[in-house]
């Protein structure tokens, strides 16, 4: 059991991110208690200052500041050329980003709800993810598509989905998935700085989460997971909203004498196999927690990979916690039937500890 701190509300800032080396040498970067939304807003502001080639584009992002307030006040500071409202044309929004990125701009799109990504799926899958490859490296697509995903608030079938599985099978795309305000800022700045196209998932249930966020230019390296909580007996691999739930479940498991490690993937594609597999080998008991439907998603991939590469070191099979294989219903009690919660993760930790049987 470790003394790593956890809170019920949000994961702590990662203890060491590569970007912390960029902070002035003598005094550590100051941190302020900030919401997830404010952290994203601050990151966009800093990046707009740093990159004159950057612009924001999306529906109701300018005067209104976005459906969740992430782009608030940026219109006043940067003007309508660089904070650009659009009609309801998701394909044109993402296509505009791809074309602009191909000629050296650094666009950041907001797709209001991840459920709408179907409208621009072709642009993401066949253009953003492929122009670098199919044209032999002659173009890059340094763009970010921010979008609000996830359920748990009665949003109904088209405002609640977890979509990472839609894109896991698409080579060329990066998927960032922060679980706390510090990572929201750090991953967004790293995504904007990246020359690869990034789908940036913002879980709606996290927008109001508060946490310490380093001031100034703070990045979290893409493709690197964080050990959000160290432990010896069971590993939980999670992302986004599943991370605070996993931390709470892990704290509860302490009472049963089960020392639980929580890996926050932070980037779900390409994911940090090294950190995941190292933790799996260390504890020999693994829970994989995802909000998305069970079949064919991130949980399936992680479970398969862990079994393939760590089979001899496992004390039992990987235990999966997922959403059910259904659409998301509107009525909250029905939604709760579908989506995994803290209790499910806690039960899975105990099951894994006993050797995998639930």
């Amino acid at each position, binding site marked *: 059991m470790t003394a790593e701190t956890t809170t019920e509300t949000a994961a702590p800032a990662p203890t060491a991110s590569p970007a912390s080396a960029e902070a002035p040498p003598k005094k550590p970067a100051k941190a302020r208690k900030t919401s997830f939304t404010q952290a994203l807003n601050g990151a966009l502001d800093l990046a707009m200052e740093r990159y004159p080639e950057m612009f924001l584009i999306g529906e109701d992002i300018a005067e209104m500041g976005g459906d969740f307030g992430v782009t608030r006040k940026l219109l006043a500071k940067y003007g309508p050329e660089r904070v650009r409202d659009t009609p309801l044309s998701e394909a044109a929004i993402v296509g505009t980003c791809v074309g602009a990125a191909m000629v050296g701009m650094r666009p950041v799109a907001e797709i209001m709800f991840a459920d709408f990504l179907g409208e621009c799926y072709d642009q993401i899958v066949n253009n953003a993810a492929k122009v670098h490859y199919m044209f032999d490296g002659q173009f890059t697509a340094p763009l970010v598509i921010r979008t609000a995903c996830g359920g748990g608030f009665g949003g109904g079938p088209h405002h609640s989905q977890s979509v990472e599985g839609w894109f896991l099978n698409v080579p060329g795309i990066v998927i960032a998935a922060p679980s706390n305000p510090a990572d929201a800022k750090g991953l967004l700045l790293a995504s904007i700085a990246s020359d690869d196209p990034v789908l940036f998932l913002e879980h709606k249930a996290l927008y109001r989460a508060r946490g310490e966020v380093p001031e100034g230019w703070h990045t979290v390296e*893409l493709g690197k997971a964080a050990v959000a909580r160290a432990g010896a007996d069971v590993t939980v691999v999670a992302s986004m909203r599943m991370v605070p739930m996993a931390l709470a479940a892990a704290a509860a498991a302490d009472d049963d004498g089960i020392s639980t490690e929580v890996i926050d993937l932070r980037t779900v594609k390409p994911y940090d196999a090294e950190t995941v597999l190292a933790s799996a080998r260390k504890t020999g008991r693994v829970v994989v927690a995802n909000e998305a439907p069970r079949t064919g998603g991130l949980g399936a991939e992680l479970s398969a990979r862990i079994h393939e590469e760590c089979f001899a070191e496992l004390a039992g099979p990987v235990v999966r916690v997922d959403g059910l294989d259904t659409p998301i219903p509107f009525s909250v009690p029905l939604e709760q039937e579908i989506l995994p919660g803290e209790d499910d993760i806690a039960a899975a930790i105990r099951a894994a500890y006993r050797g995998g049987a639930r």
Partner: protein
Amino acid sequence: MDTPTLRGLYRDMWLIRAFEQGLEREFEQGNVPGMLHTGLGQEAVQAALAAHLEADDAFFPDHRCHGINALAQQRHAGDGERIMAELFGKATGVCSGKGGSLHSADPAVGNFGDNAVEGSYMATVLGVALAAKMRGEPKVACAIIGDGTVGRGEFHESLNMAAIWDLPVLYACVNNGYAISMPVGEGHASANIVDMARGYGFGCEQLDGNDVVEAHERVGAAVAHIRAGNGPRFLELKTWRWQGVFAGEFRPEAEVKYWREEHDPILMAADELQARGVSGDELEGIEAEMRELIEGWIDFAKASPAPDPAKATADVYVGWEVARR
């Protein structure tokens, strides 16, 4: 149009026809992988567009794009044979063989690549145009599309956004009468595409895409208008493709006869040149010269090496390597 200009367009059209006919022959012999969509019969449209697009402009070529790709490559980089090599999937191709017929690109000559998903780049072209506008560059971003693309949602999203943002986009719709097998008038609310584009409120014209004199003049006027910062333009260029569908010719005999014999863009230009006193011998000489040039390109493509197998996993990401098997 002066005679030297027309003679140059005639030469360009023969380059395209020789290219496509040579390619067809090689495809039938099994030397060209994949599928083949030729631009035979549509040479005037491609020659007219290629004549006005500069290396600093950006064009997204259509499904039958070998001709404009080759002309742009030859004119701006002097190595048109690399378009042929790309179609053979060779290391010397413009994309090292990774793109092929529908994804040949070279930004150095303004070629931003076709897209096998019809209409997909109708959205992409907006970004290239928006970047040019934001930077104050006198660039023309050109989307060359077929009539079938008008059925895609991106067509309408694109025209709408280009209009509200006043973007420097040239839409060149190559209406060859059929989306694979579906006649234009059955697939769209109007057989005249221009009628559907007009609602977006910027200048739209329909013209004879097989009359290279008219096509060259109207494309030139549209490009000048856009380059001067006056916003988008839409051209519907009516033409006809020689290639049938996969199972062969499906169109009425009289229609085939009209387009191939009476309204062939090369024969029309030849008639005009002869009326201006250019000799038949000179015209035959141009054809022979282009056929020889293209045979040299085919020889180059055949003799070129296959791509390095390491290319298969290269450039998936900028920031990550993808493991080889």
